[in-house]
């Protein structure tokens, strides 16, 4: 069962010639053929292209190229369908792009290729990354591998499902308000949102440019560190990427967390928190304490305003970013007698309902007479939220909480009530507003057998410490190695 391997296990086998890249890629393809009919993690995948890349990797391995030089040589990595892969289709989970083929490559994809990865698959997602359940995909909604009547979370639902169901070794997602961490939590895998500016956004189709960040979804924390090492760093193509050194994240995983100060925000004990999620997360925090961490109460007083601020800022940015989908330069066009009619018809037909809702909200909060009352006020509240975090990080090294207030909910349960869906992002959203880094790691199961995630948040550019703590926790638990009961 080679497709169940982690990156570090797989590269050891490839290096020892116990397995070839072609075999592991074929194993993933076979796995997709057997389980993805039910799970819908993939919108599409190009088998021939993946096998051709695998053959090149095998040749490089035979020529003596080592994983010290190319850390992902021969490792199949699947990609959320919002990141541009040259000469492959790109849909963003939407119909509006029609038969779009990407004429260029995202920086993260170039970096993965340089590291020797086999890039394949277009992973299912909420349309334009707007959603928390992958039900807003214009394709089939993805399903949770632990219970296919339930949602996998979102918007990177396909990225989490593909990893949790062993259809790939690792994947990339994007996180604007929790879209990597929440599905990772609901599907029982690891999801890392790097600090804003850590990873280039060049080639990531923009939803909310000041909040979006690409990150890995993996089978364990060690793999997340390996992936982050490959994709991080300054990129002249993204003016918001930070020109600062990338530390060796993998080397930091020494299991040592003695004296680490971990804060528990008192505002996170909110009414909507499921008691079973709470007890699992409490046990995880107790484990951190047992390993030598010092646990203390902290306060993030503006927590209750974060969701409102987020839905103003994110939708305002989205309304501007998504103006480019106009049927002029790419995508499907619905004709009209003049350009305005063409635009309105193209966008009215091509966008799904949640995307329309968010563009309309974003247009409204930016419109004449409302800008100060909504958008400017939300940006000021963003300052307050960020200051809460910076103040907390003067006292503690990390913040611990549940990733999501509940485990996976049923398909269809919240579709009619967008506000309820928005409120499920309560624990993840402020990390994007504050631009800190965060990770979700498996920390237990509910009595129904659904995974629960522990979220750890680190200081801006504090990924090293974040991964170190998450890894230490993982070393002393086995939640991450449990697999869903699929055939």
């Amino acid at each position, binding site marked *: 069962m080679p497709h169940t391997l982690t990156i570090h296990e797989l590269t050891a086998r490839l290096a020892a010639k116990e397995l070839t890249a072609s075999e592991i890629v074929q194993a993933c393809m076979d796995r997709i053929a057997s389980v993805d009919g039910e799970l819908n993690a993939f919108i599409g995948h190009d088998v021939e292209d993946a096998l051709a890349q695998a053959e090149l990797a095998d040749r490089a391995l035979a020529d003596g190229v080592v994983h010290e030089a190319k850390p992902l040589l021969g490792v199949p990595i699947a990609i959320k369908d919002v990141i541009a892969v040259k000469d492959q289709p790109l849909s963003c989970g939407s119909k509006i792009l029609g038969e779009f083929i990407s004429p260029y490559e995202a920086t993260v994809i170039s970096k993965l290729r340089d590291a020797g990865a086999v890039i394949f698959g277009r992973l299912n997602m909420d349309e334009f990354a707007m959603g928390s359940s992958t039900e807003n995909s214009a394709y089939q909604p993805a399903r949770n591998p632990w219970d296919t009547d339930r949602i996998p979370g979102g918007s990177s639902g396909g990225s989490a499902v593909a990893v949790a169901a062993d259809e790939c070794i690792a994947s990339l997602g994007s996180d604007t308000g929790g879209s990597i961490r929440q599905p990772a939590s609901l599907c029982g895998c690891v999801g890392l949102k790097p600090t804003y500016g850590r990873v280039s956004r060049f080639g990531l189709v923009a939803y909310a440019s000041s909040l979006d960040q690409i990150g890995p979804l993996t089978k364990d924390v060690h793999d997340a560190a390996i992936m982050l090492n490959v994709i991080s760093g300054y990129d002249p193509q993204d003016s918001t990427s930070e020109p600062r050194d990338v530390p060796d994240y993998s080397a930091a995983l020494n299991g040592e967390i003695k004296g680490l100060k971990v804060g528990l925000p008192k505002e996170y004990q909110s009414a909507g928190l499921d008691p079973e999620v709470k007890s699992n997360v409490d046990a995880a925090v107790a484990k951190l304490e047992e390993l030598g961490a010092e646990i203390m109460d902290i306060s993030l007083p503006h927590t209750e305003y974060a969701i409102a601020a987020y839905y*103003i800022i994110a939708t305002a940015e989205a309304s501007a970013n998504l103006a480019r989908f106009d049927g002029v330069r790419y995508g499907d066009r619905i004709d009209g007698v003049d350009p305005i009619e063409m635009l309105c018809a193209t966008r009215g037909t091509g966008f799904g309902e949640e995307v329309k809702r968010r563009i309309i909200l974003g247009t409204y909060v930016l419109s004449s007479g409302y800008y100060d009352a909504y958008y400017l006020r939300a940006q000021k509240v963003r300052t307050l939220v960020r200051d809460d975090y910076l103040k907390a990080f003067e006292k503690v090294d990390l913040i611990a909480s549940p990733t999501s207030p509940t485990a996976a909910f049923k398909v269809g349960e919240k579709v009619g009530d967008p506000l309820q869906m928005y409120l499920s992002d309560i624990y993840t959203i402020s990390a994007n507003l504050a631009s800190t880094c965060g990770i979700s790691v498996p920390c237990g199961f509910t009595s129904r057998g659904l995974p629960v995630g522990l979220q750890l948040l680190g200081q801006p550019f504090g990924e090293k410490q974040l991964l170190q703590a998450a890894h230490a926790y993982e070393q002393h638990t086995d939640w991450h190695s449990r697999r869903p009961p699929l055939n």
Partner: protein
Amino acid sequence: MEIDLQHVVNLARINLSLEEEARIRPQMKEILKYIDKLNELDVEGIEPTAHALPLTNVMRKDEVQRSLSSEDALRNAPRQANGLFVVPKIVE
């Protein structure tokens, strides 16, 4: 806060069906009511955050670089002619 949906939809350049309008109108009302929560806060004198990184005017050298060829740029065009995007007539 009652939202003039027709006006906003026109600004956003999105056609809505009557069914969509009927669904979205009350949802907007509910979302805006929730968002009004922000009015509870005194934000007098608080600097707005557009962006969390202390970056201003990121410049690069003004040098010619490789970019998309016009062939590549037109590759996904719904309609094109003579190396140009074709759109409905704008001026009579």
